[in-house]
């Protein structure tokens, strides 16, 4: 695809003779780039001098598609961006359109939304943990994580029939009422996770190889996080206690009691610990939401034709990867005039160069894993 700004071969050969610089291409077909990410590394021996990301291999023009679909028709497309956390994507989109329409979502629908979104957060973190450990060389966790993720996907399947691209929510509330054993399955899943998280800690947290490969690697401090717009577990690992669920609560998150896990240095190990603790906190939220699941309607007052008044709104949620925002402009017709998705993976990946400079080439693999990107969302 896109050629980068490399010098022509004869110039390259000349500079290579003068110095130890080497340009190494990584990806797009590389097992640890989590999809089709191409990173061009400029190396001096084993030290990274600079990187350049080539992205866009999965670009499907989601924002263009939105302009040619009605508000309801576009809803399933958002699941295809971050396909690992499709429920979060759907929640953000539905909330943005509800904001334009000025619709109240009933409490029962909000509680079910919270439960499913938190289960999805755990599923997303499990996939991250498995593949991240695999990249660094620990083979076992990926099998364990996928085993537990399967339980989460079963809940989605029982709820709406789909496992990955769920389209679980509708504008104004929910399409489906929960099924008979929904509450029990959610609580069982929390029990399972709390037990299995101990197992993961036993496997990795004290493991000498794991600690050596992650401590002090890919440090991004709080000031840099803000400068690069990096959000989610990355900024919390750098010591900023900031989570949109607490800072600007939505969907009734203000009713649940949970903590924001943080760490200090902002290296790969800290981000690992933050995400592990986030799974525990998600279990806490799920338990509270299931215990206090209110009765009542599951859909607000939304007509069959969704036609928001002319105007615009920016709504963002705390997706598993960071701040996921939707900026929607309506011109009063059936189709959105413009839908802008503010993807956390794209913005977080922008800090890759900063994190990689000066580290070893083997650590680049760990750093890509720790950012937790999904290329479907980076490229849209």
């Amino acid at each position, binding site marked *: 695809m896109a050629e980068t700004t490399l010098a022509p071969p004869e110039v390259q050969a000349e500079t290579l003779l003068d110095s130890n610089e080497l340009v190494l291409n990584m990806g797009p077909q590389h097992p640890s780039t989590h999809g089709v990410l191409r990173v061009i590394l400029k190396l001096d021996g084993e030290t990274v001098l600079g990187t350049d990301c080539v992205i866009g291999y999965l670009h499907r023009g989601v*924002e263009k598609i939105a302009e040619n679909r009605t508000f309801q028709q576009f809803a399933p497309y958002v699941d295809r961006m971050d396909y690992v956390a499709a429920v979060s994507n759907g929640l953000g989109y539905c909330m943005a359109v509800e904001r334009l329409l000025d619709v109240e979502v009933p409490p029962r629908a909000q509680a079910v939304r919270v439960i499913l979104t938190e289960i999805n957060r755990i599923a997303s973190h499990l996939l991250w943990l498995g593949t991240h450990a695999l990249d660094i060389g620990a083979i076992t966790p990926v099998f364990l994580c996928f085993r537990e993720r399967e339980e989460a996907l079963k809940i989605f399947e029982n709820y709406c029939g789909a496992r990955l691209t769920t389209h679980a929510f509708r504008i104004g509330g929910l399409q489906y009422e929960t099924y008979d054993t929904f509450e029990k399955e959610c609580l069982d899943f929390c029990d399972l996770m709390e037990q299995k998280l101990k197992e993961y800690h036993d496997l990795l947290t004290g493991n000498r190889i794991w600690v050596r490969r992650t401590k002090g690697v890919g440090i991004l401090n709080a000031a840099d996080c803000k*400068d690069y717009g990096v959000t989610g577990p990355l900024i919390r690992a750098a010591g900023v206690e900031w989570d949109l669920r607490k800072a*600007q609560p939505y969907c009734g998150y203000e009713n649940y009691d949970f903590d924001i896990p943080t760490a200090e240095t902002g290296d790969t190990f800290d981000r690992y610990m933050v995400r592990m603790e986030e799974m525990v906190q998600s279990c806490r939220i799920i338990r509270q939401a299931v215990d206090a699941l209110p009765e009542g309607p599951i859909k607000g007052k939304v007509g069959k034709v969704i036609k928001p008044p002319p105007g615009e709104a920016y709504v963002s949620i705390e997706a598993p990867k960071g701040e996921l925002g939707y900026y929607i402009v309506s011109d009063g017709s059936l189709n959105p005039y413009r839908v802008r998705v503010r993807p956390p993976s794209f913005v977080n990946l*922008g800090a890759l160069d900063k994190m990689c400079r000066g580290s070893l080439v083997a650590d680049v693999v760990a750093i890509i894993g720790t950012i937790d990107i999904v290329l479907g969302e980076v490229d849209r």
Partner: protein
Amino acid sequence: MPDTPSSDDKPRPVPRPRPPAAAGADRPVRRPVPKKPAEMPCEPWEGPLPAALQDRFGDSLTRVVLLGGQKLLVADSAEAFEVLSCLKQEHGFDYLVDVTAVHWPDKSEQFEIVWTLYSFSANERVRLKAGLAEGQLAPSVTNLYSSANWLEREVYDMFGIEFKDHPDLRRILMPDEWEGFPLRKEYGIVQQDSDWVRENLKIESAQ
């Protein structure tokens, strides 16, 4: 239902006779008047921050409102950089959430650039918009926020808006040799895609 004979020979149901007309039925039927779409609630945004900004920038801030409850500023594109710089340095908006654009082909200033800012200390979000004519350069905020680098590259890639003093302005999602800017309203996606596929992949596009 189309007026063609159905394949099965079942007699079509005879419509039930209407009930006898009530008194006053000779009056014309009152049809509901189609409702005009409601406007988004928009009220002036008041407080120390908007007052300070209006003092400093005066008429170049054309709108300072709460649109649907969200803080919105509209500025002249010539002053946009100054407003952003003031918001960052004096009012603590230290996180550039997003840079994007909207294309309005019928307006004289075709493009609208939208910056979304957030302040960690005040837990506050502000949106700034500025109009831009075709061919006019937009101010780059890469020296204020590093996150602007990729976000502005995406705006350039999708809309063809060039940013003044951007260190590395090239396409980011589309291939370098791509022609046209996909998120402009006049951009026909099928035609462009077929041409590119034929030329670069040497096959006929499936579209």
